[in-house]
């Protein structure tokens, strides 16, 4: 009996340790990013790094300002949100409220499956089909620009936003709909004035997670956004977001060089941004559940 008990406790202990793996890796990533990124700030101040607009890491007199890269990321992300939020939330509303049972049974799995298309495929499609098309259509010097990247990224994010929003909508109790209809509201009024606001925090959570993922997206922007490290003045200029900078230049940066550390510093910025977004989504999501009375 004694042996049994201690064996059980060993199992429990092993499981407990393994369970913290995620936290362990998260901590590890933070550590590594700091370790490899911090040396940069010995050379360049944090302010110069974040707000410097000249990114010339390979020059003799290297400069490490990421403002142009940051704005590139911001423009592309904002543009993508303009595409994916209306389409994604609108689709979710349709599936949740308007689609009949048979339509729903087809649409929901379809959207989930489409969410699995790899980003490289989107990037490839953007590069060989969309960019030349836009170039001809709009008489641009090149189709590889922030606009194209936003478009492709936005479409890529729609299934995710749609699935998450639809989940949030499905949590709204049917009793709200019934109460609204019983007062003489139409289905559309009920949808827009009762269901959507009730699901507001849940959908905001979906939106924040969407922003986070779009910002962290690498391959699509790498292939489609054009790769010029300059602060853009129009959507039709090529840009180079943070993620594609890392992916494109890490191959050339010698290990241990300042360029190497600079790229890790960029990763640190990226990591921090997505971390903040994720925490915000957590808080919102809890508030959503409390609002609906699903949790105290």
């Amino acid at each position, binding site marked *: 009996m004694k042996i*049994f008990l201690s064996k*059980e406790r060993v199992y*429990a202990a*092993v*499981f*407990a340790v*393994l*369970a*913290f*793996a*995620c*936290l362990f890796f*998260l901590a590890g*990533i933070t550590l590594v*990013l700091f370790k*490899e990124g911090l040396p940069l700030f010995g050379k360049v101040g944090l302010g110069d790094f974040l707000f410097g607009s000249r990114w010339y890491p390979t020059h003799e007199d290297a400069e490490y300002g990421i403002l142009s890269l940051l704005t590139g990321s911001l423009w592309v992300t904002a543009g993508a949100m303009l595409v994916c939020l209306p*389409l994604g939330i*609108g*689709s979710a*509303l*349709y*599936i949740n409220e308007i689609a009949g049972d048979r339509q729903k049974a087809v649409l929901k*799995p379809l*959207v989930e*499956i*489409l969410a*699995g*298309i*790899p*980003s*490289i*495929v*989107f990037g*490839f499609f953007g*590069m*060989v089909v969309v960019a030349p098309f836009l170039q001809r259509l709009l008489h641009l010097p090149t189709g590889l620009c922030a606009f194209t990247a936003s478009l492709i990224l936005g*479409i890529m994010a729609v299934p995710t936003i749609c699935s998450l929003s639809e989940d949030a909508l499905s949590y709204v109790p049917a009793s709200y709909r019934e109460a609204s209809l019983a007062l003489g509201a*139409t289905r*559309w*009024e009920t*949808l*827009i004035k009762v269901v959507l606001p009730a699901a507001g925090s849940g959908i905001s959570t979906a939106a924040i997670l969407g922003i*986070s993922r779009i910002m*962290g*997206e*690498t*391959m699509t922007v*790498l*292939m489609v956004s054009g790769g010029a490290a300059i602060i853009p003045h129009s959507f039709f200029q090529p840009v180079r977001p943070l*993620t594609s900078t890392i*992916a494109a230049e*890490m*191959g050339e940066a010698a290990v241990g060089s300042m360029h190497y550390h600079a*790229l*890790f510093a960029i990763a640190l910025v*990226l990591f921090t941004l*997505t*971390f903040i*977004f994720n*925490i915000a989504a957590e808080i919102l999501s809890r508030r959503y559940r409390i609002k609906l009375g699903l949790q105290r």
Partner: protein
Amino acid sequence: MKRVKTALNDGHDLFNGGYSVREVPPRSGASPFSKAGWNKQAAQKAGFFLLFMCIFLTLLFLGSIVYFIFAGGGKVLTWGFLTQWPRNAMTEGGIFPALLGTFYLTLGAIIAALPLGLACAVYLCEYTPGNFALNAIRIGINNLAGVPSVVFGLFGLAVFVKFFGFGVSVLSGSLTLGILILPGIISASQEALIAVPNSLREASLALGATRWQTIKKIVLPQALPGILTGVILSVGRAAGETAPILFTAAAFYTRKYPDSPFSEVMALPYHIYALMTEGTHPRQQTAIAYGSALVLLILVLFISGAAVFIRQRQRSING
């Protein structure tokens, strides 16, 4: 809190006790509700149409991507394409080594992530730790899930390639991909474990089984389909990821089969990227890239489809 001032309440506090219906003066005259019935119906029609356009456009865009890839890649897709090695500076031949590389990387990722992920899910569901542990782990999972894939790549580079000295290899790539898919495996496994009815656990424990025996013999087998779904979805995810393997495993061209976990490999997603950005013969190589994209797309769609299908079946069985 605002005090509502209306015609009926001009500052005096007239309300004590209940206020019966009779004491509210009956209203005379027509109802102020506008008879805007047709307006409402028109608004509803317009609104519903708008929503329909959203899903329609979404499916149109995504469908056109699938269409173009099929159209462009279909010309190149032959049995030879899948089974041969690339020839002639990547302008002819097939993508077999890339397929093989993707297979090894994905397999390695699952081998790395599944035990760990399953253990975590089991701990959370079966050993019911206190609130602190639950919340801490949950935050860990959610945040790990949100880390950009390129950051995983850098982590893999610094830790597996450099620090542990595995070099650019299948091993490094698999481990990196493993961490990437870990949250997904944990979530799916959790869902599967929670779906196992408590009555089964209680029955087992009441017979004198230990917790571990209950988990091993009763709970896990019952949760297997759900866990499998999670594994399948993660396979799809791992197969399509490029950024994590950019610096940790992938090479544009390997001369021979990977003969050890420490060899470099080619991989499908990386192949597409490399052909388009480092290729020297755009015309032929674009065609090969189309073919690779098609193979990858079919692979991933098939895998996602299988997983979603299994999950729907499970959900309808469980009710």
